[in-house]
């Protein structure tokens, strides 16, 4: 529980400093510090337990389906990191209180810092691969926010994005590696995995697992070639650099190497990849650091180089190497954090970080200079400082490598070379900043010592460098032993933390490095010129952003190429997919297309009908550009479709088709008025051929499907309907009974579709203004008479007649063809005829019906009929009917289905009227258009 609280305290506590900022900057800082201190306090007990050789564990079930639990464990390595994270964190909080300017939002800073702290603690304490990954990515995310803290600056934004991209990508690769690892071991629990090293190394998936995990580690720890994000992360405020980029986040990568060391190390692949990467990073970064004029740039490359060193130590794969690696983690954290803080102080006081401007600071801030020089000495590996100890262990390790055979000496040589560079850039940090004459054009002048409290963190860290450097056995030894022990997951090798081992070969190497480094630095001007001339190193930042921009551009190109906004393309793709769906099964040989039924004989009339339909359909295509003619041809197709329904025993369908047809024609004509009357041939020949081919393909496919279907027998549930229609549904017209009863729910849905269509169309017509042709396509002015008298008078007479027919169809529909839908259409058409013959205003004066309520009540009546059955404890839409007898009128039947059908009727009337009347009204507000369309 303590372990969970240690993580949760800063993570959730991140909310407090932004709130506390209302009470002042100090309050915010104090809050952050208090939270950190509390976490540290909480950590005391488990730490003590760990020091007593009992790892502390915590387990909470979370996502059992994937075995994802909250599994925490504090062992020696975790303990070391917890101490580093919380200890240095506390110092950074103090430092930042004075570092940040008045204008910087401090609450946000501390919030994000605490968030990061929580994530980092999580990384250290996780005993579960996935949990580790979660916290790992959280460190990436929170560091993104911290780097971009000064988000008005381009370099900050870009630096943050670069860091996030690289480390985020590494994390995703690592996720894959973790999944593989857990697949091999059968567990996510790290402590279990650590015991399964032999199994893992022997597994065929070992190589991909290792490489994927290493990508994660290397990106985080800025190993070559993923190193370049770190220098750009220097756009962050210096406390962030001191914390993330020296002590904590960048250490996560090497932490992972240490954490999984027992499980993954000990193979040639490990040696080559980890060792090789570490060595390359070590050398390259040390070399580069020397040439950085930016104070923080130098420190960043130095950090990369030291991380390379640590990586190399783990890569060497010997127990001593691992011990040295852990030791250097501790040492680097202390001296590099203090160096960043010192650099921050100088920046803070001079307003610049350019070492070509900053000179002679010794005179202005001797106290700070002393501290920085001691820390830089540690960085260079000067004896009596902590850096010297671990570096010497490193030199010693390089001498005992045998894997490279006769070339083994190269490693030692390379280590010495790196040492030379390290001394050289450390010398530059000391000399170029604190001596080297007078400052040049400082933005702030004169610089002086920073506030008292800003130096305290540096003092503490530098003191630690000294203490460890002088009295290693009394200070760091237990912690080192503890941490190294858990890294090795076994007995510790023999090692000694003495300052003086005699004039051993490693000491000679240190000596060479010191002398060589100082010599190199003294020749720096020549070296700078040489480098500029010989190795103009390509700027990784430019490359990175070019790559990103290129990717984005390419993504845009691909996207625009696919999603080009052309409906024709989208439709063609859909139809092509449909074609494939139809053609592939018909063409391959499973099952047969044609069924066993014999063909029914042709009769001449049907052939004639089919011919008329076919020709009419082709005519629609051929005349598509004479649009009115095409409409006429289309209505011929519709007519023949209706006849087909009659021909094959579907009178209801014929009625529906006929009525819908005419409403559609009216609608098309109303719309056509506002559209160009003539189209143009504008598709290319190739396009037309392609479309025709596709059309023929799909047409042929559907035709074959029809044929296959018609030639095979089938068994249907229709018999049930035929039997139950009269006794159960109270109607003889089975189609109608299906519509209002068996499948009345479909019909309810169908009228709802109509209602929505009408409403949506009403919406579409809202404030729509279209240019209105004042002449027909041939330039003839429209006929002056709006409503031909003869038409008007005769159609008025037809109205009651049509309504009578409509009532007839409605009442009879349950037993003979008809029903509410058709009746509704007939009523609507009768009224539309009045609209056409006498005008909207005229008709609406005489038939003042609001269409919206009609539609609403129609749907309501239909649904309410359905709900009515609840009162008889029957499911929705259960019908009831009965035969009644009235004197004089005789027998008649009443059915709830009729009420339902009334709803259908009203909806249809309302919908058709709403659509056509409003479409008709469009001309009232549209602007006459002088030029013909």
């Amino acid at each position, binding site marked *: 529980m303590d372990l969970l609280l240690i993580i949760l305290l800063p993570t959730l506590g991140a909310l407090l400093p932004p709130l506390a900022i209302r009470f002042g900057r100090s309050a915010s800082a104090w809050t952050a510090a208090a939270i950190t201190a509390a976490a540290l306090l909480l950590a005391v007990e488990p730490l003590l337990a760990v020091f007593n050789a009992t790892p502390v564990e915590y387990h909470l079930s979370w996502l059992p389906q994937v075995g994802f639990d909250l599994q925490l464990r504090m062992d020696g390595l975790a303990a070391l990191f917890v101490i580093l994270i919380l200890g240095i964190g506390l110092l950074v909080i103090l430092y930042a209180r004075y570092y940040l300017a008045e204008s910087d939002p401090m609450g946000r800073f501390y919030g994000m810092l605490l968030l990061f702290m929580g994530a980092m603690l999580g990384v250290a304490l996780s005993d579960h691969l996935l949990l580790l990954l979660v916290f790992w990515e959280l460190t990436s995310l929170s560091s993104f926010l911290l780097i971009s803290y000064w988000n008005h600056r381009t370099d900050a934004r870009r630096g943050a994005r670069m860091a996030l991209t690289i480390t985020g990508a590494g994390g995703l690769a690592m996720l894959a590696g973790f999944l593989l690892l857990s697949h091999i071991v059968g567990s996510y629990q790290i402590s279990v995995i650590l015991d399964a090293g032999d199994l893992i190394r022997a597994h065929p998936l070992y190589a991909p697992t290792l490489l994927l995990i290493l990508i994660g580690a290397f990106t985080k720890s800025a190993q070559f070639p993923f190193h370049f994000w770190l220098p750009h992360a220097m756009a962050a405020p210096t406390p962030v650099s001191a914390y993330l980029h020296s002590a904590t986040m960048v250490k996560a990568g090497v932490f992972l190497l240490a954490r999984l060391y027992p499980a993954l190390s000990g193979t040639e692949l490990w040696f080559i990849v980890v060792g090789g990467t570490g060595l390359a990073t070590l050398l390259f970064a040390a070399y580069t650091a020397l040439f950085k004029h930016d104070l923080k740039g130098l420190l960043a490359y130095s950090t990369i180089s030291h991380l390379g060193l640590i990586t190399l130590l783990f890569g060497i794969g010997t127990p001593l190497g691992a011990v040295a690696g852990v030791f250097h983690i501790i040492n680097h954290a202390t001296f590099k954090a203090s160096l960043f803080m010192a650099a921050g102080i100088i920046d803070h006081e001079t307003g610049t970080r350019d070492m070509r401007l900053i000179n002679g600071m010794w005179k202005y801030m001797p106290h700070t200079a002393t501290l920085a020089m001691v820390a830089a000495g540690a960085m260079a590996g000067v004896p009596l400082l902590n850096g010297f100890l671990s570096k010497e262990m490193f030199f010693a390790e390089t001498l005992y490598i045998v894997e490279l055979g006769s070339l083994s000496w190269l490693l030692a040589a390379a280590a010495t070379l790196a040492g030379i560079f390290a001394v050289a850039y450390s010398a530059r940090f000391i000399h170029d900043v604190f001596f080297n004459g007078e400052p040049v054009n400082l933005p702030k002048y004169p610089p002086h010592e920073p506030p008292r409290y800003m130096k305290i963190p540096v003092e503490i860290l530098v003191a630690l460098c000294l203490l460890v450097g002088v009295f290693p056995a009394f200070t760091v030894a237990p912690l080192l032993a503890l941490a190294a022990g858990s890294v090795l997951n076994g007995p510790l090798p023999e090692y000694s933390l003495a300052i003086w081992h005699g004039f051993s070969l490693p000491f000679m190497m240190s000596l060479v490095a010191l002398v060589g480094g100082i010599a190199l630095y003294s020749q720096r001007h020549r070296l700078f010129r040489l480098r500029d001339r010989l190795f103009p190193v390509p700027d990784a930042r430019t490359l990175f952003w070019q790559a990103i921009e290129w990717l984005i551009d390419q993504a845009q190109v691909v996207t625009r190429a696919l999603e080009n906004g052309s409906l024709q393309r989208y439709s063609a793709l859909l139809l092509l997919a449909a074609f494939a769906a139809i053609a592939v099964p018909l063409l391959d040989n499973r099952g047969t297309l044609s069924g066993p039924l014999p063909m029914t004989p042709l009769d001449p009339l049907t052939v004639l009908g089919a011919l008329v339909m076919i020709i009419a359909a082709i005519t629609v295509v051929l005349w598509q550009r004479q649009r009115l003619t095409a409409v006429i041809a289309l209505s011929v197709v519709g007519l023949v479709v209706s006849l087909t329904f009659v021909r094959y025993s579907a009178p209801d369908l014929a009625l529906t088709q006929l009525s819908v047809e005419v409403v559609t024609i009216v609608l098309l004509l109303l719309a056509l008025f506002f559209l160009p009357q003539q189209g143009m041939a504008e598709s290319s020949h190739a396009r037309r051929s392609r479309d025709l081919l596709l059309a023929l393909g799909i047409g042929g496919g559907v035709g074959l499907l029809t044929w296959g279907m018609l030639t095979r027998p089938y068994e249907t549930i229709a018999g049930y309907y035929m039997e139950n229609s009269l006794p159960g549904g109270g109607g003889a017209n089975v189609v109608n009974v299906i519509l209002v009863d068996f499948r009345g729910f479909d019909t309810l849905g169908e009228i709802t579709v109509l209602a929505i269509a009408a409403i949506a169309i009403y919406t579409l017509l809202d404030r729509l203004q279209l240019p209105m042709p004042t002449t027909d396509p041939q330039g*003839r002015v429209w006929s002056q008479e709006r409503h031909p008298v003869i038409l008007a008078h005769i159609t008025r007479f037809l109205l009651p007649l049509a309504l009578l027919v409509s009532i007839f169809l409605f009442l009879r529909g349950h037993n003979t063809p008809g029903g509410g839908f058709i009746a509704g259409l007939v009523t609507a058409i009768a009224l539309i005829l009045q609209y056409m013959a006498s005008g909207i205003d005229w008709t609406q004066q005489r038939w003042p019906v609001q269409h919206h309520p009609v539609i609403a009540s129609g749907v309501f009546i239909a649904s309410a009929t359905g709900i009515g059955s609840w009162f008889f404890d029957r499911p929705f839409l259960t019908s009831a009917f009965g035969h009644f007898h009235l004197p004089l009128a005789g027998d008649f039947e009443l059915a709830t289905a009729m009420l339902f059908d009334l709803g259908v009727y009203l909806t249809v009337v309302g919908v058709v009227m709403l659509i056509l009347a409003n479409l008709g009204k469009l001309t009232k507000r549209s602007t006459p258009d002088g030029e013909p369309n």
Partner: protein
Amino acid sequence: MLEILISLFLVIGAVFALIGSIGLARLPDLFMRLHGPTKATTLGVGGILIASVLHFSHRGEGLSLHELLITVFLFITAPISAYLIARAMLHLKGKSLKENPGIKTGDKGNLQN
């Protein structure tokens, strides 16, 4: 006897309908073509409908006169359709009474060109 009557009405009706359509196809000018459908077809369909009335009435389910309704309906609407089509043609030819009062009694009833 009734069957003969039915057959007679059927054939006469169908022939009239055909004649109307022949007129539609054959006559040289829209205004002339109008005469066929408005009269012959209407009557032809009427004949067939009467045949239907007779047929279904004699099948024993009582008098079936409802086909007459269709006939009535056609008689009411066919002239209007013809009138509108003629008007539309006059409009297309620019010869409507309103726009060009110049049409005089005795104009050659062929406005095709």
